[in-house]
């Protein structure tokens, strides 16, 4: 009598073979995998800064970035979240675009109590070279710069374009509110703004984002002191589909010393972090990588 497992294997094998063949046909060739570093090819075409599905990405080598739980500072993550981010990069001599792809069973957009937004970030040492700062948010005197993409910010823009109202309307579509004193007119409104939305009144960069966009550029010298840089240059576009985020973050290659300048042909480093909103990841509750070598192809 044949073992049962063998019979099952023989029965299921043909569909599997067909599926693999179909996948190969539909996707074209898989990008080369570079486990040693993130290699950003120089391209002549426009950067696919807003297109995670652009054909350009197929030619970019893919680096499988392994993430680990953030366990340096409390609160730490004790249960692993996203453990793999596939990173590809291309540049045009002026800006570099990173394509980050990771599995996430749910699309988490608007944070509310007990729920946070999906997010991803790429971190660079402020100064490249062998003496890199601590990969966990840098350290005193040796800062890092971070391009931080947050799903809710992208959703804010989408709703604004679609005329779908603010976060409260999105969270509570059936709610009916008679009146917010905040929406009084003139001087009364300004007073109400101070009283009822103090974070906005103080210009908190989480509450007020005059430049818009889904990316915030941050500086840090260790945990607990993250803040936005004076110059905000970066874009981010994410797309969640079939339990997977694909997000493109674009940053300038050299926009001055405050934005961690990169030099094509000179190896530096990047690190990646992912927050899973469904698992209530925020702040230091995150999955992160160590430093990963980064090389922008020289002209």
């Amino acid at each position, binding site marked *: 009598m044949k073992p049962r497992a063998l019979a099952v294997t023989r029965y299921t094998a043909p569909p599997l073979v067909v599926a693999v063949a179909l996948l190969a046909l539909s996707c074209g060739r898989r990008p080369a995998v570079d486990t040693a570093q993130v290699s950003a090819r120089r391209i002549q075409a426009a950067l696919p800064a807003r297109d995670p599905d652009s054909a350009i990405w197929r030619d970019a080598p893919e680096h499988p970035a392994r993430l680990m739980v953030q366990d340096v500072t409390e609160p730490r993550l004790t249960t692993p979240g996203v453990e793999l981010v596939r990173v590809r990069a291309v540049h045009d001599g002026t800006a570099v675009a990173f394509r980050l792809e990771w599995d996430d069973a749910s699309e988490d957009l608007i*944070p509310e109590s007990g729920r946070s937004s999906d997010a991803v970030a790429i971190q660079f040492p402020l100064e490249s070279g062998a003496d890199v700062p601590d990969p966990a948010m840098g350290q005193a005197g040796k800062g890092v710069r971070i391009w931080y993409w947050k799903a809710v910010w992208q959703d804010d823009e989408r709703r604004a374009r679609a005329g779908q109202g603010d976060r409260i309307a999105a969270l509570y579509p059936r709610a009916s509110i008679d009146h*917010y004193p905040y929406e009084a007119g003139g001087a009364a409104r300004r007073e109400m703004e101070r009283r009822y939305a103090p974070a906005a009144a103080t210009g908190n960069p989480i509450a007020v984002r005059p430049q818009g966009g889904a990316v915030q550029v941050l500086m840090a010298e260790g945990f607990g002191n993250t803040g936005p840089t004076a110059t905000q240059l970066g874009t981010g576009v994410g797309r969640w589909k079939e339990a997977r985020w694909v997000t493109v973050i674009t940053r300038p290659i050299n926009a001055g010393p405050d934005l961690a300048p990169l030099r094509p042909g000179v190896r530096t480093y990047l690190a990646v972090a992912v927050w899973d909103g469904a698992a209530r990841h925020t702040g230091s509750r995150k999955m992160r990588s160590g430093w990963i070598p980064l090389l922008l192809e020289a002209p």
Partner: protein
Amino acid sequence: MARVFNWQLGRTMSYWYSEQRPKRQFGAVFDINKCIACQTCTLACKTTWTSGRGQEFMLWNNVETKPYGSYPLAWDLQLLEAMGEQRWNGQTYEGRTIFEAAPAGERVLGIMKHSGDYAYPNVGEDETLGAVDKGAALSLPQQIWMFYLARICNHCTYPACLSSCSRSAIYKRPEDGIVVLDQSRCRGYQECVRACPYGKVYFNPSTGTSEKCIACFPKIEQGIQPQCFVNCIGKIRLQGWISPPAQAKEDNPIDYLVHVRKLALPLYPQFGLEPNVYYVPPINVPDRFLIQMFGPGAPAAVRTYREAKNDKTLAGLFALFGSTERTIPYFKIAGDFAVALDDDRKEFARVPIYEPVHIRRAENPLLQIIRSNTT
């Protein structure tokens, strides 16, 4: 973790930061026995501070019915269960605080509050512990009971919200010990929402940041009590300043009620935060429940309160509750009056300790009818 002294536990305990007490500490006494859950305090706060977008569910001040009410939902039950046994030996707490019970990787033992947990502020309202048996008559101690618990931020000496914030965006004001959340620094991580055992920090989904009770500090700075105090129609609240026990002053109303007479007790002292809102416990509730909620001093506090009307100092002090908008740093008894004194111990308010009693006979001899109490 540092070692700090928590006088409410009668011992030192672990805390994220070292002991650093403010110049003076905001303190308050709530007399539970007088609260009728009219929610005037709740509305006074709501209309003053949290009428904005994203604050729809926020009640920095709320009044819930115990034993079944809670806002946010099951804030205390969940934590009490997670903490395990809470054991007192006399006046010393031998169990673990939420700092000492923090799981690996956490700064405190916290319970995450979900947006739905704020959706039922009136859950359990007016519900008593069980039903009245058919044919039962009222007897003492009562077979069934309930009471109203008015709550604001406790402006704790060892705040869990403060210790949990990885950005150090929460701090105690050195001048008055009021715990405030720096609205310019908060990045909305919600660690404070998770950490506060009293559920008194709230996430605003509109701004993406957290907010909390500020003890109406703009009023406090002018020597005026907060909105929820001065609007209390039951006059159950008194705001002042609480000293550490060794520095307690007999003519400080809060010190007198808390330290001298041990009549007003902290809410869930076993959490370990040294909360600074003190409650005169309800007199109609079994000791076991009171001890769980207010610590081992509760039965004695109830006994003292039952005799308070015959104690001129206590009766006078309670008469000062709600008698003036101004904060009462000191008081004295002068004859048949209780007198409120300012920081320089100068009088600014005076109330009779006992109101005159008029007994109206049931019969009206002039009209030869029985009077009715219907209004």
